[in-house]
């Protein structure tokens, strides 16, 4: 008996089988639902326009890199990526820089009007970009910032700063106040304490906030398209304009789409271990 029981492991328990199967089926179906549309985009990006329109196929018959060549050799195309990444990074840095001290204030102190201020900040996350599109256009035109990267970066702080404050505040609340007090007793000045001691403690929170700023700035189109014409035009906007002008080259359109997915995919890959906590905004 003792000899036969050697071979048992928890995984072979027969009673747990049916449940495990259902879970796996659901998960596989859901991931397929997630991936098939992306696959379709990738598939078409490797086809010539003629092949796409010529007949329905499940995979490329003559895979080609021509579409990618078009994009990567034409500066009016690839500058779109540069523009997008420029204003996304500017926005992320700007949002974090102002959100960090504010979140600290909200997490540590009570002050006149703090609760109202916090809610008012959050309301900006709720402001529909459509409402702001036209006023932004007029505002930035009047101060001469129209069609610059900083204009888009500033516009996107509208929804990214409140979000960053909210996320960071959640993470900061998790840091015991005694740490601040000890540092002050040890003679740290506020800026030095904040940078040397406090920021490393909430590093994962800063990472998560940066991820969200990057994400929402990267995916937004309405504002970034309204505020740019040529010099700072984001890739997403170039996609819609160029393509409609040149009579819909599906292959190039799909290749451009695939290229917009890549930065996001890279970012996700790097933060994959923090995603779950980050999505709960530090409140789990």
């Amino acid at each position, binding site marked *: 008996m003792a000899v036969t029981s050697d071979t*048992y492991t928890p995984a072979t328990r027969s009673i747990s089988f049916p449940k495990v199967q259902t879970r796996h089926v659901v998960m596989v179906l859901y991931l397929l639902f997630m991936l098939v549309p992306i696959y379709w985009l990738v598939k078409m990006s490797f086809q010539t326009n003629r092949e796409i329109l010529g007949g329905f196929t499940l995979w490329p018959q003559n895979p080609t890199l021509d579409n990618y060549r078009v994009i990567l050799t034409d500066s009016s195309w690839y500058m779109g990526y540069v523009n997008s990444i420029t204003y996304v990074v500017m926005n992320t840095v700007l949002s974090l820089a102002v959100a960090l001290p504010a979140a600290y204030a909200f997490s540590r102190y009570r002050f006149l009007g703090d609760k109202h201020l916090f809610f008012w900040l959050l309301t900006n996350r709720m402001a529909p970009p459509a409402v702001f599109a036209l006023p932004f256009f007029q505002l930035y035109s009047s101060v001469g910032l129209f069609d610059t990267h900083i204009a888009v970066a500033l516009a996107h702080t509208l929804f990214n700063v409140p979000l960053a404050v909210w996320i960071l505040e959640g993470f900061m609340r998790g840091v015991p106040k005694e740490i601040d007090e000890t540092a002050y007793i040890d003679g740290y000045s506020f800026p030095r304490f904040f940078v040397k001691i406090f920021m490393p403690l909430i590093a994962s929170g800063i990472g998560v906030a940066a991820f969200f700023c990057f994400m929402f700035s990267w995916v937004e189109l309405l504002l970034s398209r309204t505020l740019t014409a040529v010099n700072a035009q984001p890739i997403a906007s170039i996609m819609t304009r160029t393509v409609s002008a040149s009579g819909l080259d599906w292959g190039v359109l799909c290749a451009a789409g695939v290229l917009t997915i890549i930065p996001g995919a890279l970012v996700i890959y790097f933060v994959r271990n923090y995603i779950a906590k980050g999505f709960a905004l530090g409140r789990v």
Partner: protein
Amino acid sequence: MAQITLDNLAHSYLPNPKGEEDYALKQLDHVWGDGEAYALLGASGCGKSTLLNIISGLLVPSRGRILFGDRDVTHQDTVERNIAQVFQFPVVYDTMTVGDNLAFPLRNRGMDAAYVAARVQKIAAMIGMEEVLNRKARGLTADAKQKISLGRGMVREDVNAILFDEPLTVIDPHMKWELRTQLKALHNEFGHTMIYVTHDQTEALTFADKVVVMHDGRVVQLGTPEELFDTPEHTFVGYFIGSPGMNLIEAEVAGNLARCAGHAVRLGGTYKALQGRVQIGVRPEFVQLVSGEEGLPVTIKRVEDVGRHQIVRAEFQGRAINAVQLEGTPIPADANRMIFAPERINVYADDWRVAPLQSVATPQREAV
């Protein structure tokens, strides 16, 4: 209710354990008698929680079997084993009322409503929560929540065993005493087999009929509190039980004489020649401080007064050695030697106790 047999049991958290050190729980054969109260005592990480989870069926052992009575339950899950368990941290269903929490295990088994109500009343009275039966469990203190957990563990009458996994960790000290007394009373009344995991020796010794001491994945001794005190089977038991623990001194043993760094110590029995690392162990309670030529020369470091007795902290050959003196027993001002009650000395070879070939006198425990 049934007796629980662990047959040739071992467990490793690794899928392919290589050597002995990969096992969290090393080879174990043991029978838990029906209706007895056991304490499973050991430092954290010694494998006691692993053992408990194997008994409760939350973990399937890598090797060996578990029997409840004559029934092999090794691969049965928790529900089929019909046991109750109380965890270290309170597990309470927040959205339910206190009463619903207590009734939950009974209702899930389709018990009659009148019986459930009566039983909940009885348990609530026992844990002192009749007043708050209709309150939501959310927002209660950790103490109160843990009392609910305890109540839920005891609400079923037909369980094979009730397992407690350090249940009083989060409870206030004065409540600890009260709850432990209640548990003990409950055991006397219903006669459930209880297994109580703890790292606190006071808890273990006051709760249990028999104490199982674990060390490094192994059961080093099973015995009554007296046996653990008088004849620790392993140096760990000597060190872990008692406050301060047993004095252990390197020695060479021949016949009924031990030599510690050249000084002779008379033993209570005769021993055969011993191999390996040999130590003699004596509890501080059986150490006397004297002056003169007899005994081991020591340097007294300090004397702590802890109420009913004094602890004398001293050094022998650079290693700590302690003595406990009753309050009022004078310590000679020029005390520089310690002598041991010979029949209280245990001899250890490679940490395991060696029984004497013949003992001179039967040890009688004296009150300390």
